[in-house]
């Protein structure tokens, strides 16, 4: 339900804020929710960085990337629900805000994130938390689980045939 609430809030904002309405009305519902999402656990600046990061972890390919499926918002909500959001994660987001990460060249961003992915200590921890949050949410979406991963289960079968390949026995 939270997504619908957000969307309803978004619609209220559209009617209230005439200036933005023309541009927003042309967006898809998902894009609309995204464009008007008010982060709660994160500041606007932190959220902007998070959006760039999650799409770097899981970009759009034949299937949508992380932000297109709302992973950025899900992470903000997850962090909102936590009694004790990981401090190291927030600190490092702030460092990236301060260094203008969102506005540097893409190749520099990739280089920087690679450093994080291989680092030990706080930077390494930051990367792992970011990645855990991103993949957990991404592959819990219908698109992530079924379209991207090809999952066909969670259903009732009369028989479970098992392996039918001669070469595996």
């Amino acid at each position, binding site marked *: 339900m939270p997504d619908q609430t957000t969307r309803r809030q978004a619609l209220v904002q559209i009617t209230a804020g005439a200036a933005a309405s023309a541009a927003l009305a042309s967006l898809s519902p998902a894009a609309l929710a995204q464009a008007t999402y008010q982060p709660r656990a994160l500041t606007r600046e932190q959220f902007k960085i998070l959006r760039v990061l999650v799409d770097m*972890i899981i970009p759009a390919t034949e299937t949508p990337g992380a932000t297109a499926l709302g992973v950025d918002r899900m992470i903000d909500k997850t962090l909102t629900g936590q009694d004790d959001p990981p401090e190291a994660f927030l600190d490092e987001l702030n460092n990236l805000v301060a260094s203008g990460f969102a506005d540097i060249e893409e190749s520099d961003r990739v280089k920087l994130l690679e450093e994080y*992915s291989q680092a030990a200590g706080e930077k390494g921890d930051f990367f792992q938390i970011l990645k855990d949050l991103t*993949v957990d949410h991404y592959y819990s979406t219908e698109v992530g689980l079924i379209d991207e*991963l090809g*999952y066909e289960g*969670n259903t009732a*079968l009369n028989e*479970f045939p098992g*392996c039918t390949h001669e070469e*595996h026995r």
Partner: protein
Amino acid sequence: MPAEKFDVCVIGSGAAGGALAGELTRRGARVALIEAGKYRDPSKLRTHGWPYDQTQPVAVPDVTADPKREPVTYEGDAISVSRGRVIGGRTTHWNAVALRFSEDDFREWSVNGVEEDWPISYDEIAPYYDKAEELMVVCGTRENLKVLPDGRFIKPLSLRCSESILARASKKIGMRVIPVRKALATEAGHGRAPCHYCGHCMQGCGVSAIFNTAEHVIPRARRTGRLTLRSGWMVRELRTGDEARVQSALIFERDSRREEEIHADVFAVCGGNIESARLLLNSRSARFPNGLANNNDIVGRYLHGHITGEVQGYLKDLVGTKPGNQDGALDHAYIPRTETAKGADYAGGFGIQLNVRGYMRPHHARFVPGFGRDFKRRVRDLQPAHTSALAFGKVVAHAENRVTLHPTLVDDYGLPLPRVTFHWQPNDIAMYKAMLDGCHKLYDAASVAFRAQLKGPGGFASHEVGCVRMGRDPKTSILNEFNQTREIKNLFVVDGSSFTTFPEKNPTLTIVALAIRAAENIMRMKDRGDL
């Protein structure tokens, strides 16, 4: 009006208490069954929900003690214990692996020079294993293995591609992959709905294809007219007055805190390892200042359970193939323990359950290195190739590992908190290394790449046992060979806490076999006027 007096008061309705109450009522006893939890309708479990529309149930249903209202305090190494609060106890959400202990498993001292021998032998318990399997309905294959005796099996689960590949590879290294033995109806005609292979076994089976005392035993017991089920009630203490005899159980309703006394000729404690010990320790009299039947200070000691270690990985043969539907009944294959090498630095053995993790999420996504397009592609390619090996090892019981009553803290119901003290011993650590080596050896033989070893060791996989042990030596045990306390004739303890020692095999089938056997003995003793 005098209060009703029951033949037997059974405390706890899980594998032990459910089976015991079922067998006692079948044999004509009038039974009061006290269960702290309430009925949970399996058809309301939503086991086929999805993570993305908030219909997916939580990993384990809300049927255990609420850690906020009824906490456990821990000292020592990181392990956890589980306490059910539901009719059916932990049989309401279990993976149903049902293995017989072997002849040697009852003779640790004679065979391996560690711990003690049980006061009963395999031959003595074998007829009750037959009865337990008949009650529980166990699928499997006859393999003629000394380390894992065959039983009465129905149609086995078929092996998936990953399990077939591992089965072929295991032969090269002296391991043997066999179809798992589970208390699961794999076909119609066993008085319950057959499995429909949705893979949500651990969350509670929505159609009860898995054995569950709440669905398969207690309704039958009620139909005898001899079962009085008090659900939502818990025993505060067993009262003995000045005698060496339990006279009543002081019970309270968890919602209202109303108290009552239950009178019976015999009391059978089946609360699960921790709760059974806690109840005995919390029931004191001048005659039993350390708790009932505990004048040797053994109640609560010898706490142990399984040590677990897990390696996940990806079978090269299956990377990039079409995923299909691999859910099944969670794990379909088991690797029985191999002979422990002469000169090994540990006693005991370990078994491996394959593919217990399910396929509804990419377990590897957190571990695959890097990020971006290549990462995403790799996660997808690995998904159909996922496999997991979860090893369960024997833990040697030590008197210092124990549960006691917390001296000051009480739970919401005013009961002293269980205080669990546990440290892994050198044998356990050596076992853990051997378990992981075994998993890696298997993976080497089967070309399993990209392995992720879960942080461990883990304990006890909800398989905790030993706190009110039976034995031959009155100095180191509480119960005789009939699950009867030595100091109080009409007090029995029938659950996993009664295990003298514990091999690598899952406990439930043995718990049910012991319960059926105890019921028979209780009735025999009662008929003879011994109780």
